[in-house]
């Protein structure tokens, strides 16, 4: 076995191996077009090596000429694939220049298959045996083909194109790629061209050994690509480490992370999402399967929230219940956002889920406690009013009794005064209704209930409260005044709860005036439209007022100035107004204290 055969065969097989590897990489990842072009260039180099070996081993001038002619096919492929590689890999280059290079090379290939023996020789006249690496190899002699210049021009253009492209990449900041790929392309292509010129023009009597230079080129490019593959692998390692860290963090925070590809309806998720949403471990999740686990009442809103986020590419934020296989239900809070990965990629939504059952339970418990407290406070308020209410009931009941007695006497007369009896019966009905209303109001206030917001006429609300406190006000010799404009818009709120607040503030105000001279005891309930779509209500007394230091603390629980007070009336009023989205506060001056609160105007108005 000769060295020439060994070296050239090994060069060819090395190139083929690289070509196969990178072709496979491209086959797996179609986006890696640089790998495909590199594979083509390597394969072309292998073929080029084969043709060179053929030239060195040819027995006749005709065979030599044929080998040279076929050499130009891999040469063309090499140049074209290198142009494309440089363009794709360095992401730069003037397109017109690239097309010119390819055009010139293609022209050279056409001329190669023209009437002359090949591109380089018009005719190969003889073969000489030249010593090379310790053996004799064939070198042709003949008439050079002047069209050979076209081929060499294409090489020159190629060098110019690569230099230009590398410069652009260098300027852009990709210096290493520009240096390794551009530099090696320019260096080895120039070297190959010089080698070919010297030998083919017959200046140097030696076999063509461009393969070795092209091998260097392939090695340089292969090195660069493997560097890229290595850094990609490192990136993958980093990513998987980050992924693990994220999963750990998600686990620690009880967050289920997910990525939903809407077009395929596939969900990637961290392991803890499955049990959270009631899926078996490892069971694939899809939006469709997910929705069947959502509580029927929450299904439609949840789906709409997802769709809206997708359509508007906005944030997704919702809370829903999922029904677990064991029949329990769990509250989940979900947040997400829509992401579009690259051009033409399917939109994906990235998000997290959090189990908020405990919080929801606390909220429900809080609501229940608030309702209980409000109820207790109402009962206590009503017990304060008990004697007043008895009076309020005894008034119509007494009237009914007196009327009935009168009717009885009138009917005993001869003739009975039927007209008067008729009037009496009408009065009895009216009084019965009046007593019933008092009882209804009382019962409403005594009922344990949650918040039911409806549209309310504020003047009516106040007048119903006044029915309950009027008797108390008379006993306390307090004059009550109501200043509610008829143009006041209706408010939105819970009738009973708002009446409770009014009752509380009115009773407080009346109590504050106990030590005030009778003629000054006046309590005014005022209402006016306020900014921000609210109605502002003021309850002004003529009492001694509240010390500034105490004003702030009035709404704190158990802060009370009354010896027998629980100190819950104002805090409960505060939480009721807060639940309505309003504000409650107090002001004090020489003329007395004024308590204010706001409630929203009904949007239906």
């Amino acid at each position, binding site marked *: 076995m000769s060295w020439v055969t060994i070296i050239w065969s090994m060069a060819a097989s090395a190139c083929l191996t690289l070509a196969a590897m990178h072709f496979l990489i491209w086959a797996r990842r179609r986006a890696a077009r640089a790998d495909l072009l590199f594979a083509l260039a390597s394969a072309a180099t292998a073929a080029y090596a084969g043709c060179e070996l053929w030239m060195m081993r040819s027995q006749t001038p005709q065979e030599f000429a044929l080998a040279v002619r076929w050499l130009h096919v891999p040469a063309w492929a090499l140049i074209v694939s290198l142009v494309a590689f440089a363009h794709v890999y360095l992401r730069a280059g003037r397109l017109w220049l690239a097309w010119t290079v390819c055009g010139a090379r293609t022209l050279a290939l056409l001329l190669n298959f023209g009437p002359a023996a090949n591109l380089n020789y018009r005719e190969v006249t003889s073969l000489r045996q030249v010593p090379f690496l310790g053996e004799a190899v064939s070198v042709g002699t003949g008439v050079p083909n002047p069209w050979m210049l076209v081929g060499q021009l294409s090489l020159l253009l190629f060098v110019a194109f690569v230099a230009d492209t590398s410069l652009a990449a260098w300027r852009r900041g990709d210096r290493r790629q520009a240096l390794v790929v551009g530099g090696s392309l320019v260096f080895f292509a120039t070297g190959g061209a010089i080698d070919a010129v010297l030998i083919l023009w017959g200046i140097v009597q030696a076999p063509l050994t461009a393969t070795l230079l092209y091998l260097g080129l392939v090695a340089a490019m292969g090195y660069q690509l493997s560097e890229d593959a290595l850094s990609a692998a490192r990136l993958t390692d980093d990513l998987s480490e980050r992924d693990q860290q994220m999963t750990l963090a998600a686990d620690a925070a009880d967050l289920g992370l997910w990525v939903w590809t809407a077009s395929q309806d596939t969900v990637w998720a961290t392991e803890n999402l499955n049990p959270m949403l009631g899926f078996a471990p490892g069971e694939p999740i899809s939006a469709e399967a997910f929705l069947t686990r959502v509580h029927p009442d929450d299904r439609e809103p949840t789906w709409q929230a997802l769709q809206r986020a997708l359509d508007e590419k906005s944030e997704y934020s919702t809370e829903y219940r999922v029904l677990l296989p064991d029949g329990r239900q769990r509250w989940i809070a979900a947040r997400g956002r829509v992401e579009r990965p690259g051009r033409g990629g399917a939109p994906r939504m990235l998000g997290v889920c959090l189990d908020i059952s405990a919080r929801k339970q606390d909220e429900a418990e809080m609501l229940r406690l608030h309702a209980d407290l409000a109820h207790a406070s109402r009962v206590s308020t009503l017990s304060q009013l008990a*004697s007043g209410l*008895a*009076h*309020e*009931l*005894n*008034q*119509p*009941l*007494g*009237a*009914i*009794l*007196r*009327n009935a*007695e*009168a009717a009885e*006497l*009138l009917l005993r007369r001869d003739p009975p005064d039927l007209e*008067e009896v008729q009037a*009496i019966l009408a*009065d009895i009905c*009216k*009084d019965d209704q*009046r007593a019933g209303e008092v009882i209804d109001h009382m019962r409403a206030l005594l009922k344990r209930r949650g918040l039911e917001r409806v549209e309310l006429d504020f003047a009516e609300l106040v007048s119903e409260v006044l029915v309950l406190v009027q*008797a108390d*006000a*008379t*006993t306390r*010799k307090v*004059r009550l005044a109501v200043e509610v404009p008829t143009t006041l818009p209706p408010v939105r709120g819970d009738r009973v709860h708002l009446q409770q607040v009014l009752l509380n503030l009115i009773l407080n105000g009346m109590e504050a005036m106990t030590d005030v001279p009778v003629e000054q005891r006046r309590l005014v309930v005022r209402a006016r439209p306020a900014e921000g779509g609210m109605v502002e209500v003021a309850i002004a007394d003529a009492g001694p007022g509240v010390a500034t230091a105490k004003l702030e603390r009035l709404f704190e629980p158990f802060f009370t100035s009354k010896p027998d007070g629980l100190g819950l009336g104002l805090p409960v009023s505060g939480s009721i107004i807060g639940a309505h989205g309003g504000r409650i506060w107090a002001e004090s001056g020489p003329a007395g204290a004024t308590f204010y609160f706001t409630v929203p105007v009904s949007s239906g108005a």
Partner: protein
Amino acid sequence: MTNGSSQPTVFVVDDDPSFRRAVSRLLRAAGHQVKVFCSGSEFVASLPAAGPGCVVADLQMPGLGGLDLQAALAGSANPLPVLFLTGHGDIPTSVHAMRLGAEDFLTKRAPREALLEAVGRALARDARERAERTRGQEARARFDALTGREREVLEHVLRGQLNKQIAGDLGIHERTVKLHRTAITTKVGVQSVAELTQLWMEAFPKGQ
């Protein structure tokens, strides 16, 4: 006493129109003459024109309350008896009212008999007190005719002193005392000392 002989009237004072109407109906049906007022101050303003009768008032009224009304009546020339009605009988107030001389204290839903009896009692009391007041006035007019010395002698007679003792106390002759006593009985129009004493009690009930 502009119309002392006219039929007595029940004055109903209550701020609740419905109850006012009902109770006045009942009282009318029971044969009483009724006049209604919607507040204590309205009634007090009309008091000079009010004749005999009694007042049926709500204890709890805005403005002039029941007890204020009672006080105003007691200080007037026509101290009509007051009968209180209340939505709820609270004991401290009722005790207070009774101590101030309220005729009665009933809840608004007291039985008819109780109400009518109380009204009857109040009217009777008014008639009695009114008669006493009339008699006392007549008696006082009779005593007004006495001279200063005669009054002095009268005071001693009412204390039950004998002529001799009176003559000694006043430093006059016993016969002069006898003359004064004759003048007194003639002027006042009585036959005996017993009659004289009774008339004096009528004229000055609290022993003035």
